[in-house]
């Protein structure tokens, strides 16, 4: 069946979604036609199969018994558009914490969804892909932390894109940290199966005044998945978001990571580690925008490229007029292990005020032969020696990741991705 306004409406009715949401879907679908694809410097993805064209599927997903996730408390696990597990500690529920999937959020928490879903951080009419996202979103999560609530244990999610069949993956995570709350959230994005598919994923983090969100993600989408991944923070006064993202995907992906520092004294720390292997292209556009006075936006991203793959890091620090005392710093570094790899690190600073501090560092380089020679002269095979040098290169980002568990998991995933990538060479 071809995708039309009517089929979208029928899906929304079938899902018993509230009216406001059906209307948002339809409005976005109509708007999408007239919008352009977003453009990012040096990332040429426009010809990829990144646009959503397939009709929404009503059937539930099925999955193999050995679905890969590590069970823990306070966890949401989804495969495709179907929820596998949703569990939250009773004490947290009693405090008003909400952790639920998209269907349930639209039914039971329509007020929150109407207020925040693609209204504040990401807007549906920003570009063609965000509009398509709003029109066709079919899975996701809502995490709400009430005022003054501090959650000690991390909330974990596994979002497993189902590539056992032809099915677009349109996934939306909405995190709302209310005033003075604190939460640590660990997200795993992965793929089961190897059918070629398109993924369009949006994560919105609304950090209200004085809140603190530690967001960590381990992204391991499959080789045949083409992805638009948009993660955006909206920070009010004195709010803080620590982003730690491990881009270990195997397919082509555009990462569009923004932090809007709206409030005075708001603070975003963005750490990205990316490894590209095989023939894949990972284009990562990380932006911090300082609107608030004395707001702080720091970007630190290091990446490694193997084989014939490509990795592009854009770092954008934008200080808006009036953001007195704001600070925007960034460092992007790319290490190439192969002569056929392509790497780019583009620092972009846009400063519209005087009384600010801003800085950037960027580099693209090859692995240091004298280091490799030294390690190998002690009997270490070349591939192990390379991995040690890479570890050293990624070290500054890894050690800056605030959570020890996240750091360890990231480190294991890096090793796994490198071993697999080296086997491909």
């Amino acid at each position, binding site marked *: 069946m071809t995708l039309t306004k009517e089929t979208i409406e029928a899906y929304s009715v079938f899902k018993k979604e509230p009216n406001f949401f059906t209307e948002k879907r339809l409005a976005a679908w109509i708007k999408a036609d007239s919008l352009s694809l977003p453009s990012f410097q040096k990332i040429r993805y426009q010809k990829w199969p990144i646009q959503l064209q397939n009709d929404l599927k009503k059937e539930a997903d099925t999955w193999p018994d050995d679905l890969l996730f590590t069970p823990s408390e306070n966890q949401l696990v989804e495969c495709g558009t179907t929820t596998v597990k949703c569990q939250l500690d009773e004490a947290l529920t009693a405090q008003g914490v909400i952790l639920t999937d998209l269907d349930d959020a639209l039914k039971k928490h329509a007020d929150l969804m109407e207020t925040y879903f693609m209204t504040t951080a990401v807007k549906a009419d920003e570009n063609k892909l965000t509009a398509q996202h709003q029109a066709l979103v079919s899975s996701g999560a809502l995490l709400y932390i009430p005022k003054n609530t501090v959650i000690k244990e991390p909330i974990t999610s596994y979002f497993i894109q189902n590539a056992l069949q032809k099915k677009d993956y349109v996934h939306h995570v909405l995190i709302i940290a209310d005033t003075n709350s604190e939460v640590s959230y660990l997200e795993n994005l992965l793929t089961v199966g190897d059918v070629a598919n398109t993924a369009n994923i949006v994560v919105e983090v609304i950090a209200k005044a004085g809140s603190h969100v530690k967001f960590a993600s381990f992204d391991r989408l499959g080789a045949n998945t083409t992805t638009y991944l948009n993660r955006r923070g909206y920070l009010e006064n004195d709010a803080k978001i620590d982003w730690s993202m491990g881009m270990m995907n195997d397919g082509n992906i555009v990462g569009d990571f923004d932090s809007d520092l709206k409030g005075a004294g708001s603070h975003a720390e963005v750490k990205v580690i990316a490894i590209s292997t095989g023939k894949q292209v990972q284009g990562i556009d990380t932006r911090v925008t300082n609107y608030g006075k004395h707001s702080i936006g720091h970007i630190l991203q290091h990446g490694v490229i193997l084989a014939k793959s490509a990795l592009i890091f854009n770092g954008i620090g934008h200080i808006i007029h009036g953001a007195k005392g704001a600070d925007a710093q960034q460092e992007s570094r790319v290490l190439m292990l192969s002569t056929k790899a392509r790497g780019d690190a583009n620092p972009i600073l846009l400063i519209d005020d005087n009384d600010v501090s801003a800085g950037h560092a960027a580099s693209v380089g090859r692995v*240091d*032969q*004298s*280091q490799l*020679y*030294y*390690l*190998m*002269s*002690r*009997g*270490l*095979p*070349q591939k*192990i*020696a390379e991995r*040690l*040098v890479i*570890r*050293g*290169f*990624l*070290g500054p980002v890894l050690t800056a990741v605030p959570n020890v568990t996240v750091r360890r998991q990231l480190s294991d995933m890096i090793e796994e991705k490198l071993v697999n990538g080296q086997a491909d060479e």
Partner: protein
Amino acid sequence: MSTLKIKDLHVEIENKEILKGVNLTMKSGEIHAIMGPNGTGKSTLSESIMGNPAYKVTQGDILIDGQSILDKPVDERARLGLFLAMQYPAEIPGVTNAEFIRGAINARRPKENPISIRQFLKDLSKTMDFLDMTDEMAERYLNEGFSGGEKKRNEILQMMMIKPKFAILDEIDSGLDIDALKVVSKGVNEMRGPEFSAFIITHYQRLLNYIVPDVVHVMMGGKIVKTGGPELAKKLEDEGYAGLRDELGLDIKLTDENA
């Protein structure tokens, strides 16, 4: 019993011939000193034996127990028993000294039988003690921010832990004060035995007071020009390289010689 044999070795770097036919044989249990003025090819010889890809062998051969190792990459040579204590060890951030040394030991063992961590730490601590190294050196990143003396000690530490058959010590004495020199020598002497042999490359006789060699070779102009016992080193100390050159009637210009 193992033998390292260098046969008529010619080596180029950046199209310039540095070694012009070196012949040497070293058997297990022996310590050989290679002396010579600056720019005569001593470091080129050690890097070529180890297999540094920047050095190109144009003629001759390097053999371990009769097998040529010329087509083997540096890591394979290391696993065959070669070890080069480098003049300028690389710094590797993010990798601790201890995990590196453990990795190097395990690279020589079957995959399913790595050294136990407890045994490794025990050996490491004992060896570091022997070399007057503080415990924190084990957890520091490999050579990063090490002083010149610390780097040299760390090379000897690796040698003692890895226990190679053939060690090449490239100017291990350069930049060391007398105490550090004694410690380094103590390490080499500890290794002495029927399973170990070493080339000690040095400018100065001083080191050879602490590590007494079985054989002394003098290199000039990319060749071994004279071989003898420990007394040869003493003679050089007294008469200098120019004296030996003139005695041998060689037409070689020494780098540091005033014209």
